[in-house]
């Protein structure tokens, strides 16, 4: 018997288990992966921990502040805006996604290309364009005054303006999520329903819609999250939600523990939404077929194509053409009055410097976290990944505020320097980078790395020659995403940028807050153009086969 043979021939006692130290990660993994990842997690936790300390040090009064009726009113306004924008976004995105993916809508390819585009417009730019044109005494009123004697339009500022702008700029989150779900869905299911006697309408509600629900909910929660953290639109529209109130508190009061308390409340709210989003996102992606389903046949719309076209046209007209027209108008006015090209050039350069820095930092920081999470799953790596993902729940204004407090008190040498700004961007945008890199790392099957090792290559060489080329698309996407987001980012840049470091975003902001609408047009246009480039890359990647 083989077993007897073992006992006789092996007096050294191989029954001993591996010693405990052999279960630890190797020194190389410890130094190259665990150490950087732990530092990153600490950096993310730093602001939120500091906020809690800060709010507590304000004593009872800071927490009492939370319970004041005015705070509850802020909470109410924020919730109202969030729910309204989310509901309206879903109502726009669901028909848009279905029409462009599943019907013979005339020009559906073009519609599919342009309907997500409002995503590239920063919210404060959108708000500025709408406010300057449709405000009570905006462009439209000016044109109507002579012929009709209208001296004032209904008030756009406050809730209606915020709702309009945030919906038109954020519905693409739901749209993209729904489109991805529609593309993943096996068209055979719909065909089966039709063959069992369901009408097209019945098939949509009984088969398609239930399958889209997780993606729809996940996209909707993402919109909600963005509304919670939005600073630009509500500030321009002067609607007192959390972010605006926090900013005003920060600017006007010496006791900043009230701002800290409000920030904690906002983070808590965002966390709840984020956790819900994670849960639904999981449901929407898990049961997707490994092979790509065959292309589905498009449903003929018949006479319905006219209302469908009008619907799509209205949305694009309102979300893209109208703002573009207003922007061009202000641009012409600004150029006519002689714009300072020099300051524009400097702002562009600063924006590019800041965004490049953020993209490099975020991609570099994402790699150890993703490698640990995907390739060496353990309790520790899961905790790290969760922490870095939680940064999604940190609104920019909160990160900025926390770093201001922290820098002013503990690290004055870094306060209002570029590294400090970089740290804030890293905290803010790391989740995006991790998401993109993680996706491509998951697609690269580990057996390829194992094959390389069984062919005699060391782990660093395998990483360089196999892993890195395989995840390069993910790294490119991550860099593009972070670049785009940093370009558009306002509150962190506003609060943490070194003195005199004017970016395109802060140029727009300062011009708009002083109502120099023509002056804001040129940097706004550059901003939109610059942030369209990564978007174009992402969209072309999405539409390319494979």
């Amino acid at each position, binding site marked *: 018997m083989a077993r007897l043979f073992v006992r006789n021939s092996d007096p050294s006692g191989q029954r*001993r*288990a*591996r010693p405990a130290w052999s279960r630890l990660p190797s020194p190389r993994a410890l130094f190259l992966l665990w150490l950087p990842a732990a530092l990153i997690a600490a950096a993310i936790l730093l602001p939120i921990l500091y906020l809690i300390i800060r709010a507590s040090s304000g004593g009872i009064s800071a927490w009492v502040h939370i319970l004041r009726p005015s705070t509850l009113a802020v909470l109410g306004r924020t919730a109202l805006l969030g729910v309204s924008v989310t509901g309206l976004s879903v109502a726009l995105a669901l028909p848009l996604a279905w029409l462009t993916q599943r019907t013979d809508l005339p020009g559906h390819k073009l519609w599919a290309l342009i309907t997500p585009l409002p995503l590239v417009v920063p919210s404060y730019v959108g708000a500025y364009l709408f406010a300057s044109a449709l405000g009570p005494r905006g462009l439209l009123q000016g044109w109507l005054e002579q012929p009709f004697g209208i001296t004032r339009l209904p008030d756009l500022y406050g809730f209606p303006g915020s709702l309009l702008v945030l919906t038109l700029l954020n519905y693409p989150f739901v749209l993209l999520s729904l489109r991805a779900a529609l593309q993943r869905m096996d068209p055979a299911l719909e065909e089966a329903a039709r063959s069992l006697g369901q009408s097209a309408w019945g098939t949509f509600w009984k088969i398609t819609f239930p399958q889209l629900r997780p993606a729809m909910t996940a996209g909707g929660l993402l919109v909600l999250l963005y509304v919670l953290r939005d600073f630009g639109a509500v500030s321009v529209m002067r609607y007192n939600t959390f972010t605006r109130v926090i900013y005003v508190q920060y600017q006007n009061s010496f006791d900043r523990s009230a701002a800290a308390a409000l920030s904690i409340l906002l983070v808590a709210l965002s966390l709840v939404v984020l956790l819900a989003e994670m849960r639904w996102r999981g449901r929407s992606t898990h049961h997707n077929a490994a092979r790509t389903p065959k292309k589905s046949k498009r449903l003929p719309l018949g006479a319905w194509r006219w209302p469908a076209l009008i619907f799509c046209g209205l949305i694009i007209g309102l979300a893209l053409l109208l703002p573009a027209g207003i922007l061009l108008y202000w641009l012409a006015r600004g150029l006519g009055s002689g714009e300072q090209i020099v300051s524009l050039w400097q702002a562009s350069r600063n924006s590019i410097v800041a965004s490049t820095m953020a993209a490099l930092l975020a991609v570099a920081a994402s790699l150890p976290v993703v490698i640990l999470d995907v390739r060496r799953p353990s309790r520790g790596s899961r905790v790290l990944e969760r922490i870095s993902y939680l940064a999604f729940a940190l609104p920019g204004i909160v990160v900025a505020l926390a770093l201001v407090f922290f820098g002013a008190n503990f690290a004055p040498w870094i306060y209002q320097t570029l590294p400090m700004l970089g740290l804030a961007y890293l905290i803010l945008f790391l989740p995006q980078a991790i998401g993109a890199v993680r996706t491509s790392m998951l697609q690269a*099957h580990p*057996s390829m790395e194992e094959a390389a090792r069984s*062919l*005699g*290559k060391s782990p660093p060489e395998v990483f360089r*020659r196999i892993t890195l080329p395989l995840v390069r698309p993910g790294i490119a996407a991550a860099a593009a995403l972070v670049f785009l987001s940093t370009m558009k980012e306002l509150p962190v840049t506003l609060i943490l940028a070194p003195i005199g470091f004017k970016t395109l975003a802060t140029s727009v902001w300062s011009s708009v807050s002083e109502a120099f609408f023509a002056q804001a047009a040129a940097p706004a246009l550059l901003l939109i153009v610059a942030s369209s480039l990564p978007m174009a890359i992402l969209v072309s990647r999405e539409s390319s086969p494979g």
Partner: protein
Amino acid sequence: MQDIALKLEGVSKQFGVDVAVHELNLGVARDQVLALVGPSGCGKTTALRLIAGFERPDFGAIWLENRIVSDPYTFLPPEKRGVGMVFQDYALFPHMTVFENVAFGLQAKSGSRPDQRVKSMLTLVGLETRAERYPHELSGGERQRIALARALVPEPVLLLLDEPFSNLDADLRLKMREDVRVILKGIHATAIFVTHDQEEALYMGDRLAVMNVGRIEQLGSPEDIFHRPQTRFVAEFMGNTDFLPARVVANGLETEIGVLPQKIEAPLDTAVEIAMRADDVSFAPEAGGNALILARQFRGVMNFYRLKLPSGRLLHAYAPHTQILPAGTRVRVWADPGHPLAVFHDSKAISPNN
């Protein structure tokens, strides 16, 4: 001992609370192909990954060519073991050409004309014309052969193949089986071949190891495994086998279809089970017969019948393709193996009494 290429002693591996491999003992002689076969989840892939160095055992030791590569204090990483592996999904590098894939394992230092080695290996697997293609431009069978070529180029001391044919169509699988066996035997490769398909294991292996829940149930030649299963599990797994309860009596084994005149080493009255394959069972139509035909499957060269015994137990039997009887026909069933049948007591085989 010199021609032992691989030896495993008491190797165990646990993932959380799941025991994947339990006290595995195994030896593979040089130039030998061992087929490791078992149902999915039996630990055969884990065993392979332990040998390759992708996992580290909790207990036990592994020797490669008389060198310890893994024990409680030693762990040689996969790149230092010289073990080649063909993956189930082939794991070809998508960003490299076929040539680059196959050349990947060659060390820059080895001065022996790497290009020449790659080319001769591509010729060996019959794909010398595909060198400049990318993996996605190849068919499934071609990818399979490139994966084999890539693993063989660095001249591994041991080649591991992890269910290499499971992603191929049935026709192609039969052809690849033959091709791969010819190649492996032609270069005198030492290999472990993992599969869940018993027929494939019988064809590919010089020796077979049947695994179940992390242990090796039986190790032996294909004929041994098939004709002399040591456990009930092996008998069940290796062939479509029915188990007929029986009792040891003076003149043989008494079953509900009569006495089988086979003597075994067991006291009288012992309750046993007889492993019966469909070709061991005969039957003929008879009005008062002891069984009933439930169904007939026409399998071309023969008919495959499902029979119901008086106890309600089912028994399967082959009959010539000319013998067509409808379901519901009464028949008389008897065992007519022409060779001793495997007999089990307590799921362990009882050796025949010669």
